[in-house]
């Protein structure tokens, strides 16, 4: 097997190890880190050039943010509008409260269509509900058609990025997977030849499998339109050749009007892949006689989204248009890659989305998988303040933890309660400063840094140094300065 990670980490947050544990496994894999860093450098360089060229970038971001907030504020009305327009145009709309219900609805639709095989366009939502293993267990053969998804499916690998899910796998690893699974012994590792192998492998599937599953980038309430943004043309194949099409879409993906695409499409391709526009964007509403699938279903998925909607600070998480700019810019993601996040949604957006979608207890460490540097907020095309949400989630983790039995006398919480008392008064604060300066003398080395602390302090110093306290506080220095002036 060619697992790019030498050890595998589950992407189901219920079973995944904590972020620090998983990150350690990834950090020990130099090949994976090299592959991730290379891919990210290429995307970042392309994105940078195209964002500078767009002189109204900040205005587009503001408009996109406002549109997405407006949708979330009025989500019920817009979803009902989408539903009625989609049905009027000949489509069917289904509502799924959770992952299990969505999987069952899709399986029932496949059974009605007598489908034993299904072709798929890359959709993170289907990965979220773990659709493929469920369908396969039910006897349906699932064929991914996006090049990266084929690499993952044939190589039995997991996605590590939401836009380029196989970025952790390099060309020689792809060659090995294709040669082994497609029986092509003489395949070279030239990306062009590898791409051609995938084209040939899939052509017959496109022409013969009569059922397809897709996600969607946007739903348009005004017109009942579904939008899919892609590069390869596998999406267009899946959207036009089969007789039955099922689109699984998160309830937050709706936009009010057709015209709103003028904002989103300008931001999405530039943010996601550093292109002015992705090669193919497909828009359709319901069914069109003589063109494409005549049996069309939209499955609207809640799966925790409505509870995110109810929370003031966290609601902005749902503005996300899944461009992955946040993970491409994140210094943490760059080092660990996506698998360390133990979820199909990695990177900064994953660090806030996963704990909320999958319940906080399954993702205790993800809100801490960030240095809070703010780069993700700066690049986000819909202005999600990810650091703000991370802090809010950290507060929730701590609140949950300190209420646990036996935590009352936990050294950390005891310390924090004492600190709370001391810092509440000025004299207490000053006394603590004096004590601290005396105490820290024992640990401060000649270079002015504290390299190791005992007991609970070691938790800090085992990974970083601490600057020793200065001889004077600012207050003392200021008082002396004022005295000197007189």
């Amino acid at each position, binding site marked *: 097997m060619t697992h790019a990670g030498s050890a595998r980490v589950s992407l189901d947050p219920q079973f995944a190890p904590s972020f620090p544990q998983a990150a350690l496994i990834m950090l020990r894999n130099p090949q994976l880190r090299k*592959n991730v860093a290379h891919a990210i450098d*290429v*995307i970042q360089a392309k994105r940078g050039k195209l964002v500078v060229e767009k*002189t*109204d970038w900040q205005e587009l971001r*503001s*408009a996109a943010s406002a549109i997405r907030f*407006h949708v*979330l504020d*009025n*989500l*019920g*009305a817009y*979803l*009902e509008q989408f539903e009625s327009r989609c049905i009027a*145009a000949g489509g069917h709309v289904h509502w799924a*409260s959770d992952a299990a*219900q969505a999987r069952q*609805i899709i399986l*029932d639709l496949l059974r009605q269509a007598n489908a034993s095989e299904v072709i798929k366009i890359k959709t993170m939502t289907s990965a979220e509900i773990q659709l493929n293993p469920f369908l396969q267990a039910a006897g349906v053969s699932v064929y991914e*058609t996006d*090049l990266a998804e084929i*690499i993952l499916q044939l190589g039995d690998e997991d996605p590590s990025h939401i836009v*380029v899910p196989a970025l952790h796998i390099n060309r020689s690893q792809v060659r090995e997977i294709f040669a082994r699974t497609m029986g092509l012994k003489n395949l070279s590792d030239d*990306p062009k030849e590898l791409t051609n192998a995938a084209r040939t492998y899939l*052509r017959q599937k*496109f*022409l013969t499998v009569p059922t397809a599953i897709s996600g969607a980038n946007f739903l*348009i309430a005004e*017109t*009942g339109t579904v939008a899919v943004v892609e590069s*390869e*043309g*596998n999406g*267009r194949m899946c959207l*036009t*050749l089969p007789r039955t099409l099922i689109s699984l879409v998160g309830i937050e993906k709706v936009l009010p009007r*057709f*015209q709103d*695409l*003028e904002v989103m499409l*300008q931001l999405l391709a530039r943010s996601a892949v550093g292109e*002015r*526009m*992705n*090669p*193919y*964007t*497909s*828009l*359709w509403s*319901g069914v*069109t006689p*003589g*063109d*494409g699938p005549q049996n069309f279903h939209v499955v609207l998925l*809640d799966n925790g989204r*409505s*509870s995110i909607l*109810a929370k003031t600070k966290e609601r902005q998480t749902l503005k996300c248009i899944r461009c992955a700019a946040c993970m491409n810019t994140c210094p943490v993601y760059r080092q660990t890659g996506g698998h360390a996040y133990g979820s199909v949604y990695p990177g900064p957006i994953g660090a806030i989305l996963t704990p909320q979608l999958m319940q906080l207890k399954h993702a205790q460490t993800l809100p801490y998988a960030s240095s809070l540097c703010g780069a993700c907020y700066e690049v986000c095309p819909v202005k999600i303040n990810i650091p703000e949400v991370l802090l809010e989630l950290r507060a929730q983790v701590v609140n949950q933890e300190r209420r646990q039995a036996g935590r009352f006398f936990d050294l950390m919480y005891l310390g924090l309660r004492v600190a709370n008392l001391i810092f509440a008064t000025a004299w207490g604060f000053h006394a603590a400063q004096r004590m601290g300066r005396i105490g820290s003398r024992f640990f401060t080395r000649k270079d002015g840094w504290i390299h190791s602390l005992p007991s609970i302090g070691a938790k800090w110093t085992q990974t970083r140094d601490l600057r020793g306290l200065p001889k004077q506080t600012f207050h003392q220095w200021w008082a002396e300065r004022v005295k000197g002036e007189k």
Partner: protein
Amino acid sequence: MKQPVQSRQRILDRIRAATPTAAKDASQLADSYAALPRAYIRRGSLSAQARVELMIQRLREYDAEVVECTSAELADAITTQLAASGRHLFVAPSGTPNEWLVTSAWKITGLEWTIDHGLPIDEHEIEKAEGVVTAATCGIADSGTIVLHHSATEGRRVLTLLPDYYLCILRSSQIVETLPEYFSRCQQPPALHPSDKDLSLGTPSLATYISGPSATADIEMTRIKGVHGPRILVVIVVRDN
């Protein structure tokens, strides 16, 4: 499985409970929508000439081949391109003007056309074609995008997807500078269905935006032209304004 109708109601109830500040009625919703900030650039500033040149430049950056001609030269230009393509089996949508359908009498021999009038021509027949020729609805210069609304001159969606070679005829009067200019030209969006009573008839229900040939960068971010869609995109820009 719980009844789907019940989960619809449950999800909507949860959403309503989560959004106490939602608009009370349609007019309040429309007002709130109208108040959204839109300070981005909507109208371009280039001259007609510069706009066409930008479109051509962007198309070439996507590795599309571009040639220019006048309306009078179009039939000749199509002939030249098809002859240069080295292909013989072509498809065209049902609304294709007769003068575009270059025949063997025109310098090239062995050219065969299939005109797509829908069924009984199926996907396998289209798959056999080596190339396709269609018109377009609009060109967006800023991103080098070709817009198809799949009218009778643009064909159903598979037509411009399965053949390996795509020759697209774009008139210069169809080219706008910015994406918002295209959307404002779409007075009636390409999404309305004839069966929808309160919406106008005749508007297309499908659209495809094409920016360069099919491509992928999934292997080490190396851009490869032509995965599943046409590998070769040729655009004839017809100067008509």
